[in-house]
């Protein structure tokens, strides 16, 4: 036994050290914007970076990024830290080969879930609209593991047909709201490439249950062009086509009123958080005869309305952080496609 004990002791000496580890990649990416400032440019991609949406904890946000490094230019959900830097991950439909353009957009986060719209188009035989569109829900950690909520287009029980949806937002753990849209494909001339014009025609509230979705029409939401929910989900702020006003619908009381009036320009693309409201005002919204040209970014804090950013820039789809201190927005500043910019709010 003494021999065994001594041997065990020696063995302990031999095994005390750990092994050297094999090499691994140390490419950790960047944190923060390339050039910090006010505003700070977060994305530089020649592709379009659109529709940012904050994660519930404010640690980061997701947006729809055009992947110029893919032959089919898929538009994926890209996740980025809240202060900018390197995209931490993409959520893409990459199972198919490069013969399909897949788009994930209109993401809305609630807890560990994300609801978003996914659509796909045959790349080599494209139709005028997407071949397939659907509203899905998935774990935020794995958006590809999605469950179908609603195929698009669809006709509701109140006989409205929606060709597309946008501005998906959570009103509660099992309740969504979105803008139902009518889509046209106008051509500037008989030989011109058709454009896509999406016109909001109403607000739909969708309740999730075991059987799927129960859709209801939100009263007073006709011709809505954007919406934003309050933190508790009881209030829906919305804008209407060709209207300068911002409306407020309180669901519990079924009362709709006007929150504010910008006076000039068309108001749209609302975002509301912690007492701050952001909207795009002015510009040329999409219509059957016009392409969308974006507008000015206006911030409303109490009675004060402030325009952010260079007046020559055009903005769309601002997203206020959950604490209301930062805003991320798609902006055109001369480049053919939009990049994301970060503004810090006072």
């Amino acid at each position, binding site marked *: 036994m003494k021999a065994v004990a001594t041997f065990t002791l020696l063995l302990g000496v031999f095994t005390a050290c750990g*092994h050297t580890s*094999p090499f691994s990649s140390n490419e950790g990416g960047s944190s923060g914007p390339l050039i910090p400032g006010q505003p700070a440019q977060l994305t530089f991609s020649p592709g379009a970076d659109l529709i940012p949406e904050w994660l519930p904890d404010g640690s980061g946000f997701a947006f729809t990024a055009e992947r*110029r490094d893919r032959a089919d230019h898929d538009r994926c959900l890209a996740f980025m830290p809240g202060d900018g830097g390197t995209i931490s991950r993409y959520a893409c439909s990459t199972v198919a080969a490069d013969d399909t353009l897949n788009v994930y957009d209109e993401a809305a986060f609630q807890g560990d879930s994300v609801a978003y719209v996914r659509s796909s188009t045959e790349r080599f035989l494209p139709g005028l609209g997407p071949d397939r569109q659907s509203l899905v829900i998935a774990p935020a950690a794995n958006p590809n593991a999605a469950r179908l909520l609603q195929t698009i287009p669809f006709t509701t029980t109140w006989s409205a047909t929606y060709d597309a949806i946008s501005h998906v937002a959570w009103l509660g753990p099992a309740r969504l709201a979105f803008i139902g849209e009518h889509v046209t494909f106008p051509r500037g001339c008989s030989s011109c490439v058709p454009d896509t014009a999406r016109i909001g025609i109403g607000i739909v509230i969708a309740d999730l249950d075991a059987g799927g979705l129960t859709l209801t029409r939100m009263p007073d939401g006709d011709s809505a062009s954007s919406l934003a929910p309050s933190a508790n989900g009881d209030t829906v702020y919305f804008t209407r086509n060709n209207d300068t006003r911002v409306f407020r619908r309180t669901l519990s009381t079924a009362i709709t009123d006007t929150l504010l009036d910008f006076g000039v320009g068309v108001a749209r693309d609302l975002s509301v958080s912690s007492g701050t409201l952001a909207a795009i005002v002015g510009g040329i919204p999409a219509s059957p005869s016009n392409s969308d040209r974006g507008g000015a970014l206006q911030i409303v804090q109490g009675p004060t309305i402030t325009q952010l950013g260079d007046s020559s820039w055009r903005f769309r789809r601002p997203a206020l952080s959950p604490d209301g201190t930062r805003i991320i927005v798609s902006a055109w500043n001369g480049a053919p496609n939009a990049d994301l910019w970060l503004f810090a709010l006072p």
Partner: protein
Amino acid sequence: MTPRAWLVCAALMAAAAPLVAQTNGSIIGHVRQRDGGQPVSGAEIGVDGRWLDRSDSTGFYRLREVRSGWHVVTMRAIGFDTMRRDSVLVRASQVTVVNFTVGAYTIEQPIVVEAYADSILDPTLVATVQRLTGDELRRFPVTTLEEAVALSAGAVGESYRGGRLGQQAFVLDGLGVKNQLDASSGPLGVRLPPDLLTEASLTTNGFSARYGQAISGLVNVVTKDGGDRWSGRVVYETDRLLGGTADLGQDRAVFSVDGPLGRGAGLVAVLDVEGKMDADPVNAPPSPEPRDPRNASPALLPHNSGERYDAGVKLRVPLGSAHTLRLFALRSVEQRLLYDPLYKYDTPQAPARRVVGDLLTAHLQRATNSFTADLRAAYFAREFIRGALTDQPAYQFGAFTGRTFHFAGEELARSQDTALAAAPVAGFAAPDFSDRTPWGVPAFFQTGGSRGDLGWNRFREMRGQADFSVGGPRADFYFGGEVAWQNVRTFQRALAYLPVGDTVPPATASSFQPTAAAAYFESQLHGDDFVVTFGLRYDQINPGSGIPGQTFGARRSVNPRLGFSTVLKGATFVASWGRFSQAPDFQFLVDAAFDDTLRTGRFRRGNPNLGFEDATQYEFSLRARPSETTTLRVNVYNKLLDGLVASVPLGIDPDSTIFGNADFGNVKGADVIAERPVRDGWGVRVAYTLQKAEASATNAFQLVRRIRIDQNGDTINPANVQYPLDYDRRHNFTFLGQVQLSDSAGPAVAGVRPFARLEAAMITRVSSGLPFTMTNAAGDTLIGLPNSHRLPLTMTVDLLMRRQFGLVGRQASVYLDVRNLLNRRNIEAVRRETGMPNLTPQGIDSLAERAYAAHPEAIPYESPRYRSFADLNGNGLIEGRTELFPLFQSAARDYTQPLFSYGAPRLFRLGIELLF
């Protein structure tokens, strides 16, 4: 055979005499009186407590079929002392001489016993055998049986005498074990822990007709029987203590025990486990790119670990005085993560492999000195799977994970459901270009999904074997036969993340039950100064009806073997001729799917009508003993290979081929082996092989390429084109040296003699390079003949130093095992288009250009591909050729690093051993 030949056979059989058996040896000797040397007749001779023979009127006795190992030989005769010799070493196929010289009626007279084995001058030993005992395995810097056998002259790894992998057979205690499914490309599946061995040997010619299924060599191992007292060994070796580049993550532990169980029964049990963080380390130069992680840490490759578990147990049970039952079980598990340059920066998608082998044998022996019957039954199963893991294993200790790997699509593969496999296989995802490389650019390196390969096969075999020997004092006759029922199941799927279609070959599966049978006899004729050995073996293989495609019944092969040996002055000359055959790998009988259109074709058609592969070998051997302590062996041989399996095009489409018995070749060579066994504290063995192994241009790819049209428009078929076989190593030199210092060796320092009981063993190998084929840069045209270029010379020096010491009444030792002591950078492979390990700068630029052309798009700041060092103008975009192309160049240089072109680096292992 002609009637005359049958007559010769019958004559030889009638004159049966001693001959070799691969598991057992024999003991012969005389019993004589001390005074006058008068023979003592009627003396009883026994081995290990069993009386087996009596001396004849000349005092001569002979004990047949004595198992290899150490034995107690006892002699008793009325009126004489009972004499006992307790350390007689019997080696397989050898004769050990034990003479007893006793003084009549005098108890006080000392006993004189001689015991030695002389395999050098013994003319009855026809086979060319190179052996290592279990004790030598422990003393040499070798870890596995395969490494030990590779020390033999004429061996290139597991290729012997120019043969390809799989042309050898593994014989365990007289029972053949072979991976008949894919021996040419896969491992056996079971590994015998060296602690189980009594001895291991490589027989390269003249092996007994008892053994078949081999045309290049027999690896013969004899396992221990349980001893008459309990003993054991515990070993642990590692490189943990060394740190830095010397720490390659190696751990090995061995626990072995053997002893008696009572009533003559004995038990041996061994557990041998090994883990390596890098199971295939390479001595490739560091990357010249500072940003490449191999620049700073070139030693260990990620996702290249391996673990193996080998456990064996053997039980010997005597059944009465003449019968013995031996039960043996062996289980081997090997799991490997496989480094793939494609997944250098995203290792979870890299492939992995698991091989599990089980061997169960039962051996009932009836042994009397005049008749021996060995009845053996064996079950051998081997399962192989290779593919992508469902999740990455966590290391528990070193490279040991302690859990079974799980592969994507594993259940589908086992079910062999090719219909279900036509759809994308669950668990597989399409790969994308990695963004974790130092270069960022979308090129070469992949992530997100594996290559999509899934391969699974299982081979099972039930084998029955009966061997009989009949003999008297000076004659033996061996005969027997065997039958094996086999079960083969295979499954392959390529690009499993895509549905089967135009560019994706269908999954292949097969399930069939071949049967094999054999019968043999063998005999020797003794003349006054010569011995003639004759054997005849009949083999039959039937692929069975379960195999896809039409088959034409059983294939048969008759293989005669003939040897002549004679004793010259101080030497023994042996001439042998033999015909050997082996069934083709079963993998060639069925279709195979590949995702490699450049080399092997996407689809190869199996041929269920393949026949035996054959070899006919002539050999002349001269064995001499220049002095009492030295031996010299010279072997000259010529081997004709015929009917080797080859890939034959079905037309001019290289993607469509079928297997056929189409290749033939020739191996000529000579071995010189000089040896001085360890005496007076040192011993050496030096072996040199000169060899030329060539094949003929029957590969139809080459034939098609070499067809020319002359000026008249006629087709010129190629003439007889000879080119080297893949394992044609022209020169091979091996030196094995041992030094063992005594207890009193060296000076005493403070009462301690640091050099006392120090042992050292060194192996030096110098080999000329293997051949390789060069092509043009596009890879579609050969430059010169196939295999007409040579790799450079390789050299390794391995050293094991051991210091023994007492440890609380037990013997213990610490040792240092160093492989490739000189850290020589041996080149084992080169690129076909350059003849060097590396791609040329032009080749790298060409690769980079193609990759850049495919992805010229700018890389924005927010992209995981963005690398600030490459954004020369700092505008947040890596754009344009100036900024992008250098990244593609670096990526191409990184991807084409010739890692596996180089052999292993210097490997250290510190070991501690306790004997009990």
